[in-house]
């Protein structure tokens, strides 16, 4: 690529520093606020020097069983990820390999499942899950999130499968392997980065989702996002706890970004170009 001159390098550094500041300072403020005593939470001008307190974090875990809510979030996120990844990957493989002129319509139908406004289906879901007796269970959320995550996985993975050279699978076929062996031993290992990126996106979506989690759970399956919002009450918005909870909820995203950046980039561009 182009080699920048020194003066340009300086300009770039400055611009990048600004970008970093803009995108990271809000998160820094969350971190600061999560250890700020309540009386000075809002002050003009905001105080940055104060004696930090762990009260909000302690309250978060004592006022409500926040650890359980985190566990619920994890359960729902992992469950939906596993579910969506399995079904979405299989479907994506089939869509990528079947040669039929209607297959595009099918792919479009699957994708269109993402387009319906979620608010409109809350009540039907409520009735459905109530009847099935799985309201306020992680399973209900796993199912709902999968209707969003399966299309996403299918869409992303199709891009990856399209990139796998046909000759590799043909080679395995003439080497005497059936379709399943070929899929599991040749194709799947080759799209591992795609699996990783799909998993991250599924996980993050499920982990972050709010409105379904609010409407379809009670305290059995309540997720961390809803729990954090529940500190927005009728008589007070408990900003300290909200900030502490938010900071905890942000952590998995940061971890994923730090560990999977390379795959994320590849996955997103591949999935979206194709």
């Amino acid at each position, binding site marked *: *690529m*182009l080699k920048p001159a020194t003066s340009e390098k300086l300009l*770039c550094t400055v*611009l*990048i520093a600004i*970008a*970093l500041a803009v*995108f990271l300072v*809000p*998160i820094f*403020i*969350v971190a600061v606020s999560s250890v700020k005593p309540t009386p000075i939470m809002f002050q*003009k*001008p*905001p105080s940055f020097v104060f004696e930090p307190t762990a009260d909000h974090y302690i309250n978060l875990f004592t006022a409500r069983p926040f650890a359980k809510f985190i566990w619920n979030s994890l359960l729902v996120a992992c469950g939906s990820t596993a579910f969506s990844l399995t*079904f979405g990957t*299989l*479907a994506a493989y*089939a*869509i990528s*390999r*079947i040669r039929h002129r209607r297959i595009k319509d099918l792919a479009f139908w*699957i994708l*269109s499942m*993402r*387009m*319906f*406004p979620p*608010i*409109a*289906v809350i*009540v*039907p879901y409520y*009735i459905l899950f109530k009847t099935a007796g799985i309201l306020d269970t992680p399973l209900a959320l796993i*199912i*709902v999130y*999968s*209707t969003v995550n*399966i*299309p996403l996985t299918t869409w992303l993975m199709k891009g990856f499968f399209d990139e796998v050279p*046909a000759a590799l*699978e043909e080679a395995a076929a003439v080497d005497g392997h059936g*379709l399943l062996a070929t899929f599991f031993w040749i194709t799947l290992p080759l799209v591992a980065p795609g699996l990783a990126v799909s998993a991250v996106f599924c996980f*993050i979506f499920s982990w972050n*989702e*709010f*409105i379904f989690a609010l409407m379809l759970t009670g305290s059995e399956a309540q997720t961390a*996002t809803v729990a*954090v919002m529940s500190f927005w009450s009728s008589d007070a918005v408990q900003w300290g706890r909200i900030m502490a909870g*938010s900071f905890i909820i*942000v952590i*998995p*995203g940061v971890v994923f*970004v730090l560990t999977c*950046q390379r795959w*994320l*980039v590849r996955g*997103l561009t591949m999935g*979206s*170009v194709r």
Partner: protein
Amino acid sequence: MAYGRTRNRKIFLIFLVPAIAVLFLTTIYPMIYAGYLSFRSYDLAKPFVPRVFVGWANYREILTSSEFMHTLIVTFKLMVITLSVQLVLGVGIGVLTAQRLPGMALVRTLLLIPMMISPVIVGLIWLFLYFPELGYLNYFLSLVSISAVPWITSTTWAIWAIAIADIWQWTPFVMMGTAAAIHSLSPEPYEAAMIDGNSRWQIFWHVTIPQIKPVLISLMFLRAIDAFKLYDIIFVLTKGGPGDATEVLSMFIYRQSFTFWRMGVGAAASFVSLAIVVVLITFFFKSLNRSQERI
């Protein structure tokens, strides 16, 4: 992928079935139910309000109401603002961070963090920053002698406040796509352009942009779908206010369905929304095909 032998086709169908079955089972009932509701007067909170078939009345009400048109305008306005700023900023930062310099990978990684955060939390974070008197944002602005901006409390600023929160969250998405697309380009056109003596700006505009255009179009398309579903941030930041300044489509659906409990009107609005998104997507596929043919 040529060996679509009959037996393989069977296996492919078996592969397809679970996903389709799950999607079908879990979406078809809610959607049929919503479709059924959209032709009825149905107040969930007030069983004493007659629940009757009303034909196209709900659709007619929506499509003729100035309120709905207002929400459409706000939605599109917000979409245009967020998409264009995300595009410009995202491509700009993407190009900056695509340089192969030490530390750039870490910078790119750090910049991705906002898009990993729950939209509700993003709303809460920005609400916290936006408080006009007490928030951090105006404090920072005052440090550089910019007078306080009534972010979420002014009917003119509120839409920008929403836009900024959305831009903050999703610019990294465009940035990441841009950086990756640039990395995947072959160097030849650049070398040719340099030999031809083009300026950096010309190269960017005539060589880079046309090459990454398909990627940009897909990114914008994904953002456009989400722009129609944008909900959490507004739910937390303004609830559609002040006045009705940030009353977007999804807030309209929410208000009709869960504040006024007019489930039928809400369902009808959802289908109108779906129709708009589908039209958008068809348009997108067309333009994507066109831009790919050109390359």
